[in-house]
């Protein structure tokens, strides 16, 4: 489920959005690719975009609008993005642009786009089934958006145009680092891991946490607008930082006091280290999908927890601070 991972490794300079365009722009400015080669690349890309334009009008029309022409051009660039991003290295991508046959790169990109598209669909279907027992009304909108994605996506003429209804936030409010179908792949795969996280805990406990949380904020459980996995992870983090490692959301009665007193004068790094330690020792570490997904986010989560712990407000951040009935 992770053939295409559009997340840039740390230390890479160029953002994943509009990757190829930025790469070429820099290569031109820094002269890391010879001017003649850049011209060849440009001509191949224009030729491909012109082919798309002709195919779009079925050779019946000699003009397209500027917006349509731009869209074909973005599609071609997006195919290159899809070929270069999985190399996971700016220098490797640059080398590919310098030495590889651009047509071959475009073909690879097309294949990667289709793989990402199929994987994204499979990911959402699985994510939906895992999250269904707790799904809020927002999942209905996700479902409608998914229907459009799986029937209306145009990989040839508008490869980068995927409108995700991202009003359902991801864990730790992650932003989607890349556009198009790769962004959809990222979003739906993230939802899948969050679904797996929810399914890793006893269903009744998850429901109870959501019910208590909704009651505290005077709403119904199906109207919770927060990320469900985040609520569960916060609750579990509370339990874990109090010393528990089992997959239960049950907190000690005085959990808030314990956490406030333990971390009130500590640094965020301490909370993060303790949390990482707890996750590594918990059964969550056995689920490679969940572990790989949440581990890089623990830093952010710990920072959020520390913000409340340090001001003595652990009870505010824990969804069900008094424990479960």
């Amino acid at each position, binding site marked *: 489920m992770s053939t295409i991972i559009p997340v840039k490794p740390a230390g890479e300079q160029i953002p994943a959005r509009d990757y190829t365009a930025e790469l*070429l722009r820099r290569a031109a400015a820094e002269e890391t690719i010879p001017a003649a080669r850049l011209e060849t690349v*440009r001509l191949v890309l224009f030729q491909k975009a012109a082919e798309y334009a002709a195919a779009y009008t079925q050779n*019946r029309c000699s003009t397209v609008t500027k917006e349509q022409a731009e869209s074909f051009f973005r599609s071609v660039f997006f195919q290159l993005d899809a070929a270069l991003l999985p190399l996971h290295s700016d220098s490797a991508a640059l080398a590919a642009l310098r030495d590889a046959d651009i047509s071959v790169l475009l073909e690879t990109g097309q294949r990667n786009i289709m793989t990402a598209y199929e994987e994204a669909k499979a990911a959402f279907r699985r994510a939906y089934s895992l999250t269904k027992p707790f799904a809020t009304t927002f999942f209905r909108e996700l479902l409608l958006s998914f229907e459009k994605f799986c029937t209306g996506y145009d990989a040839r003429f508008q490869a980068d145009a995927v409108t995700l209804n991202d009003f359902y936030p991801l864990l730790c409010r992650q932003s989607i680092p890349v556009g198009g179908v790769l962004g959809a792949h990222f979003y739906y795969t993230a939802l899948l891991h969050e679904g797996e996280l929810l399914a890793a805990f006893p269903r009744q406990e998850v429901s109870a946490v959501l019910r208590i949380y909704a009651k505290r904020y005077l709403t119904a459980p199906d109207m919770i607008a927060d990320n469900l996995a985040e609520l569960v992870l916060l609750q579990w983090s509370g339990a874990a930082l109090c010393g528990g490692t089992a997959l239960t959301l049950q907190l000690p009665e005085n959990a808030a006091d314990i956490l406030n007193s333990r971390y009130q004068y500590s640094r965020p790094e301490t909370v993060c280290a303790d949390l990482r330690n707890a996750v590594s020792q918990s059964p969550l570490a056995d689920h490679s999908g969940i572990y790989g997904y949440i581990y890089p986010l623990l830093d952010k989560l710990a920072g959020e927890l520390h913000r409340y712990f340090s001001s003595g407000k652990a009870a505010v951040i824990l969804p069900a601070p008094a424990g479960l009935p």
Partner: protein
Amino acid sequence: MEFSLMFSEQFAGLALAEQQKQILATNHAAYGDYGVRLSPEDAEMIAQTGQKAVSAAGMVAVGGSIVPRLIRWFLPSGYLTGQNYALNVAELTEAFYRLRSELQDAGGHDPALTLSDNALLNYMFNFYTSPTCSGDAAEMTAQAENILLPVMRRLAAGRETERKQQTKRLSDQPENALLFADLIEQERAESSFEEEADEESYDYEYRSAMGKDCFGGSDPAYQEPEAYGTRDTYEDRLRRILNRNPAMLFPSRETEAEWADRAEHWEDEDAAAAKKEGAK
């Protein structure tokens, strides 16, 4: 070197000199059959007018220039004569791109509602040669805007309504239908193949019947309420046809294929003439 991502100059189709050459290649037919010809300066002026018109309409040319085909299409009109030949061609070129842009806007840039170049040229020719316009490009544009644009808007509104109904239907769908919508669509597409073929044949019969109805067929039953149909102007007849069925705005596949063959034949002729000229 700056890696420019500006596409328009690349997408601008053929270079001016190449367009000029193509325009001049129509001289053999224009002079041979109608006694008119363009000078290189005329050709340059027309090519520039075309480029400006494309740019003003917010469009990008993806194929060759429309001008040679437009000239060949309009030569039999009888209005491309004498000293105003170049000026008339330039006006028609400008009108073509203006109408093309307006029609695309009216059609909501929906690829299914794109009138082909040939179809647009045919409408322009019919307006241009009708007694109402009598070779007046401005009047032709006005007539085309009056008649074609509302129909295109009507078609676009129809499709928009369909889309809204589809969205409404969608929101009532059970979740499995949404979750596996692509698979359901594929299955339906395969199973309905036969029905679609039937529908196409029905469309063709319907078109024929409408054509007979509006242009005076042999069946007197059709002619009865439209006894004066053949005495109307082209604009009146077209308006009536399109009011009855806006989808008639688009020509049949057979007509499109016929036009495409004709355009190809002209291009071959022009290319041969240009080659001959070059050899001299």
